[in-house]
């Protein structure tokens, strides 16, 4: 395993990137991005077998990842850049005209690391299942990962996909839900409660694990456990508890920072809580 401290440093740097990108664009989604930084860093720097230097759309012979809740693009872009998919300097173009870093992830501009456009919610699980089925047809033993918002799974297509993944025994696939209980209009439990999520996914025929998405050791251990349970005829779901806005005290404990950029002063205050580690872009 990579040094735990270095992974935590990467996650902190990514949190700085998120604040600076959203501030720079005066637009974007910091809350969920901050909450998922540990997951992304663990996935791209510890868990996945992938090839940042030679990105291929087909992803044959490597693990592939899909971000279904595309609005948390800042955390993904930062992670991809820090993993070597493209120059970190390009993070400064986020959400600006002629950028490859679109507001929501897109393939049209050819940004390495992105295999599917996302943003309109509920579509990424179906796509991930398709990619996993292609891997099986190709005799490719690598895995498919995806991330979803908890509010996102209010979309019906998610449950169509859930049913089909179990039916087709898509056991080379590990999905994760960012279970922060926040969505645009308030707490998920108030807007449209999800009930007993663990029981739901188990009832749909999935291996279901839980983890603290803001505890790097737990994230790595749980993702590794999920990997060890692939190939057994069932898809895997990780219910990942996170804190929206993690790492910036005034962005935590509220849904208010779902899609709001910080002011100049708020940016400075946020960055003062996130020490620069491996260097700003």
């Amino acid at each position, binding site marked *: 395993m990579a040094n735990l401290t270095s992974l935590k440093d990467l996650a902190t740097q990514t949190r700085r990137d998120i604040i600076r990108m959203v501030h720079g664009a005066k637009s974007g989604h910091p809350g969920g991005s901050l909450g998922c930084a540990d997951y992304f860093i663990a996935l791209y720097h510890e868990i996945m077998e992938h090839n940042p230097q030679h990105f291929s759309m087909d*992803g044959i012979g490597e693990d592939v990842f899909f971000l279904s809740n595309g609005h948390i693009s800042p955390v993904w872009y930062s992670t991809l850049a820090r993993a070597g998919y493209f120059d970190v300097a390009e993070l400064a173009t986020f959400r600006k005209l002629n950028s490859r870093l679109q507001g929501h992830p897109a393939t049209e501009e050819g940004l390495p690391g992105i295999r599917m456009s996302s943003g309109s919610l509920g579509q*990424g699980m*179906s*796509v991930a299942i398709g990619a996993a*089925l292609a891997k099986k047809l190709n005799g490719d033993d690598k895995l498919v990962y995806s991330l979803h918002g908890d509010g996102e799974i209010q979309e*019906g297509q998610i449950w169509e996909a859930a049913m089909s993944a179990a039916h087709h025994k898509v056991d080379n696939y590990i999905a994760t839900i960012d279970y922060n209980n926040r969505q645009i209009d308030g707490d998920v439990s108030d807007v449209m409660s999800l009930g007993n999520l663990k029981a739901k996914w188990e009832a749909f025929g999935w291996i279901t694990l839980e983890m603290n998405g803001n505890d790097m050791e737990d994230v790595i251990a749980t993702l590794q456990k999920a990997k060890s349970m692939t190939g057994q005829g069932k898809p895997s779901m990780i219910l990942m508890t996170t804190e929206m806005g993690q790492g910036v005290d005034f962005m935590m404990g509220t849904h208010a920072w779902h899609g709001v950029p910080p002011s100049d002063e708020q940016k400075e205050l946020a960055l003062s809580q996130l020490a620069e580690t491996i260097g700003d872009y």
Partner: protein
Amino acid sequence: MKKYTIQNEKDTRSGFGAGLAELGKEKENVVALCADLTGSLKMNEFQDNHPERFFQVGVAEANMMGIAAGLTIGGKIPFTGTFANFSTGRVYDQIRQSIAYSEKNVKICASHAGLTLGEDGATHQILEDIGLMKMLPNMVVINPCDYNQTKAATKAIANHVGPVYLRFGRPKVPNFTPEDQNFEIGKAVMLNEGNDVTIITTGHLVWKAIEAGQILAEQGIDAEIINIHTIKPLDTEAIVNSVRKTRCVVTAEEHQISGGLGESVAQCLAQENPAPMEFVGVKDVFGESGKPEELMEKYGLSTTHIVEAAKKAYNRK
């Protein structure tokens, strides 16, 4: 008027099924998905021959479109199969984001398009699908006219890299195009050269346009008839060249006038060569239950309607 011989009467969906079966044997990377309509889409032969490459997704069309998009990542060429209504309107956002915007090599194959679906009625008789699909950037839209052409189109789209909407239908219709035809995406087919009026048509209306041409010839009007199997990209050169010669035009299609082939032709001619134009198509109403031919008559899509429209355009010159 050139003579065309009906080889037999066959449904265009069977042309799709036959084309898909051949693709299954010829191309290892062709896969197929169906949303609980395998028999209706004539996908059984592919399913029987290649069960490992056939994915039944149940009554879940949105999921089907997403899985198809995902299968392209890994180099597959997915063909999705369901009714035209559930292939377009029901899953528009999935097609828009996961297929068209993401530039995925998915072939959306749609049967039971239009009024000729018949007795099931307006819930299933989509007449807006061409418009929906042609508005999407990156999307190719194809509506072949008979069994042989649908089979040829099915095979041709596997060689086109990018999303395609292939529209076909339920009833048995005259099969008259050559069995060994070379299907060229985006290339109009000249069915009859004439000087007095251009009839531009697609899908099930192509044979009716030929019948109309024969009637017009008997009445002394020399019609040029063009089969536009590819609505997007549109063969504007063939259209403009013809209308420059005839100086009037009729379009005929089993679709709403709004959003259909006629609208695309009108846009082209407005810019390149304005001319008197008439539209044979559905006039902003929903269909209803009935036999296909009864519906085509009631909603203004019969041979007689094409004849009358052609004369009207001709008299407006």
